[in-house]
């Protein structure tokens, strides 16, 4: 990371942390869904739009984190 300027370094870390945070939230929600009485039709189908939205947010930070210049 030494060859990054401080601003890039902070952004790099920020995207990485945000990706991690959203990934953890997303996985917890998925696990919560799996433990429901009917994980399929009761959880993954009715809430699919919300799940895909959260997945989308996660993917945005994941792309930023993965592609942002790292040392």
């Amino acid at each position, binding site marked *: 990371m030494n060859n990054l300027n401080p601003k890039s370094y902070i952004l790099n870390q920020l995207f990485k942390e945000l990706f991690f945070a959203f*990934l953890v939230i997303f*996985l917890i929600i*998925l696990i919560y869904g799996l433990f429901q009485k009917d994980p399929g*039709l009761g959880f*993954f189908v009715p809430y699919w*739009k919300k799940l895909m939205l959260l997945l989308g947010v996660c993917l945005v930070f994941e*792309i930023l*984190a993965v*592609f942002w210049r790292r040392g």
Partner: protein
Amino acid sequence: MKKILNHKSKIINLQSLVMLLFLGILFVNYFDVLKFKYYVPPGSDPVTHVSMTKEILETGKAPAPGYPPGFHYIVAGLSKISGADPIKTMVYFYPFLMFLSALAVYLFARQFFGPAVAILSLILFGFLSPQPRQTLWDGGFPNVITADFIMILGFLFFLRAYKYEKWRDVVLAGIILGAVPFFHHLSSYLMTFLLICIVPSLLLFGFITKQNFKKKLQIILTILVLVILIGAYPAYIYFGKGYLEQIANLFIAHAASLKGFIWRSTSLNSEAPPFDISWYSLVISPYLWFLGLLSIPFLLKGFLKDKKAQYLFMFVWAFAGLIISRPYSFSPLPGRFTRELAIPFSLCSAIFVVDSLRYFNNFWPRLILGILIGVFIIKGLLGLPGWVGKYNHMVFIRDLDKEALDWVKENTPKNATFAVAPFNNWFGLLTQRSFVNTNTDLDKIKNYDYLYINRWQKNWMWGEDPTRYIKIREEVKNRPDLQLIKTFGEENEKGIAIYKIKK
């Protein structure tokens, strides 16, 4: 020396784990067949597959061109070697297709993404994905052996040939992918569509990255020529124009006959309508669907930044698979193609898990992520007992049916003809007597020697409504031309009755 020994024991441990996983896959897939003593494979499609195999055994060749006979020749060969009849051979061979499929997935992942991704793919695909298990238990044996085994092996050598530029891989890719049209028509269509998407992507990738583009172009063109010479052209000779038209029309007929193209696409659509996008996580399984989608940034990075062709291959495979699973005019069976996403999504999921754990190189983030992904996957594995007996309701021949059919075989003349009401598609294969399914129409039964009334049980295979079975029972009671000779089970619609038809 210690280092070498450590390395060796690591390899042995890895091999033991892989062996254990494959044994687990065999156990899971053979469990129902052995525990519930299946007499026939589940579903009604296997009737066609067994009939074809039987004809190959009797006449030495497949019935008139219609259905690709590759799978049936294999079962006929196994039947000859084992000395078992084609039904028994099919019953004990079809769960093995899942093993072959898992083997192809493992080898592909091992070749291009390393042991960690390979083992994880094996777990995800072998134990967590309901597909291609669902396809298999629906009687889609040729589909599974082709799209989930032969095509994957073909892709393995195709990508090897592209990456390492060895002519041995080119020949193997050509031969294996060329075999696809002989095994399954829809898989041929899927393979054609995937190659149409993958080939230009790889060529463009080779051109942009300047990785010996000319040689790669030569290699890909040679593979395609081999596929046409080995697969498409002989298939044309063997099956005739009609068979290839099924595949080709969907692409080239667009220009030749728009009307024919739309008709063909929409008529096939009705056989396996598209899934609503909200159902994808259930069809493919939430594990593969969500983890697979999360792999997109790592796949992009793999080929855009790291210039690795295998990541591009996976990205295009999954993306093209998603496109063809939607109800577009060029997607003849979107519902069926959704199931075929299981393999690329298993591989993508495994890539995501391994790459994301590598990405978070600090202890705590890696541990938290590892635990969450672990819980997610373990929860899936805990659902395995739910598969026990899941497809029993699709096995049309149970103890009572077998008893009745065996009685027919042993106690009626070989040339006796049967009217079967309302239907039993396995009747001819299990009794070796000629028969006709009459449904509820008993007017023409005087042309036959016996009437076999099948039992009803609440299930879609028998029909959810017993009315027609009750109607048949009521009607035969008052008919003087029928003489009851044998009953099996209850003396109502839940039992089987055999009548002699008085002439």
